[in-house]
């Protein structure tokens, strides 16, 4: 497979076939917490795309320059958590100083991402899939876009749900979880498409 096709395949599979939220069930907390209105969906997605891309680049560099030479591959989880947390804090300070509009747009969602497990998952899977630097960055970006797509789609579902009148026992979170499961099933229709298209 050519390098270009590989990149396209990563993009496609991360957004559709291997969508982090709807197929791999990672980052369910922000998925349920932030999907109530469209504006916060966009803010959160923007922040996630931004941080995932940066985190992929940063962890790739640290893994190959520091962890492999010292034989510390087994520590990747704990080191990546540290790196992501520090990175998010750092990015927040820089944005606040130099790119105020972007900081205002991402708002409170930026620090929240420190504990977003999708960011950790993407960096760990970059390593286990043996991606190179460019592929890692694309993977991070595409995973963020996939997260955003899931969030925006589910926001629409929730808007409809608000007007529906479920049985008393299902009101609130239960019916939201049922709706999330149904949304996730629609994405299972993409299974196997990435390999057929680019494989």
């Amino acid at each position, binding site marked *: 497979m050519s390098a270009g096709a590989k990149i396209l395949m990563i993009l496609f599979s991360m957004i559709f076939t291997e969508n982090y939220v709807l197929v791999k069930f990672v980052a369910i907390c922000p998925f349920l917490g932030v999907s109530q209105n469209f504006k916060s969906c966009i803010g959160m997605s923007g922040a996630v795309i931004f941080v995932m891309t940066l985190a992929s680049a940063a962890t790739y560099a640290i893994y190959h320059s520091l962890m492999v030479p*010292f*034989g510390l591959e087994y520590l990747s989880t704990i080191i990546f958590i540290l*790196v992501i947390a520090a990175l998010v*804090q750092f990015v927040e300070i820089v944005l606040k100083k130099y790119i105020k509009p972007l900081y205002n747009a991402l708002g409170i969602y930026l620090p929240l991402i420190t504990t977003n497990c999708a960011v950790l998952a993407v960096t760990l899977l970059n390593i286990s899939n043996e991606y190179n630097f460019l592929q890692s960055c694309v993977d991070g970006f595409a995973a963020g876009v996939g997260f955003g797509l899931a969030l925006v789609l589910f926001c629409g579902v929730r808007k409809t749900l608000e007007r529906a009148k479920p049985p008393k026992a299902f009101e609130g979170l239960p019916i939201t979880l049922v709706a999330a499961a149904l949304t996730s099933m629609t994405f299972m229709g993409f299974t196997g498409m990435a390999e057929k298209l680019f494989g």
Partner: protein
Amino acid sequence: MSSDILNAVWVLAALGAVSAVLLIIASKYMRVPVDEKFPKIREKLPGANCGACGYAGCDGYAAALASGEEKAINRCVPGSDAVAKELSELLGVAYVEVVDQVAVVRCRGDCNSTSARADYQGIESCAAAKLAFGGTGACIFGCMGFGDCVKVCPEHAIVLRDGLARINSAACVGCGMCVKTCPNSVIMLMADVNKVVVTCRNRDKGALTHKECSKGCIACRKCERECPASAITVKDNLAVIDYEKCTGCGHCAQVCPVGAILCRDFTGAHKGQK
């Protein structure tokens, strides 16, 4: 074996130390001075985000006060005098009393005095019912009684009884959420020192109004003639009270043949608690 453990400890410690130093440097050299006033002002505001002050929410009002764009400290209606007092101390501005407001339902068309025009079976919301040929009642100006206002009231001061919204003025903080929500503009904010209110919105001719609702204003002009302060005029088949002239004597409420003028004490939650 021991070197493996030591390696791990060193690398992790070094990584932690480097990020810590980086963050310390960053926070020192790239610090953005925040307006110290803003969080202090924001803390004083009630946080209802009702928009009665004319800003998008408490944050908006606090930011405007902090930057000096907004001078008036008495704009927060839910917070009332207590908040105005705190703000005046904080900002060193002279204290001005908040004009307390209270919401009133300008309709008395409950299910005994008016009837439905159609059997509406759609979504149970006034906004939705309004879309279907202007509403469900015989009178298209009045309260539809699906309780959109009940749902938005942050103080739970509104109840539905006999198909009509009723406001408990002693619990009303005057935020105006119900006023914005009501699709027929039946609810109005009124300074709570006033005592009389015209409880009808029907602008049809008198005879038609009376067919639609037995409590509707039939524009007979009796109140206009009898008011000792001549504060009432009938405009578009509806009595209108000029609160500048009104003395609150309540004579109009007594003479109104259909009972479309209400006279009582509308003191809201703020003054009521004092």
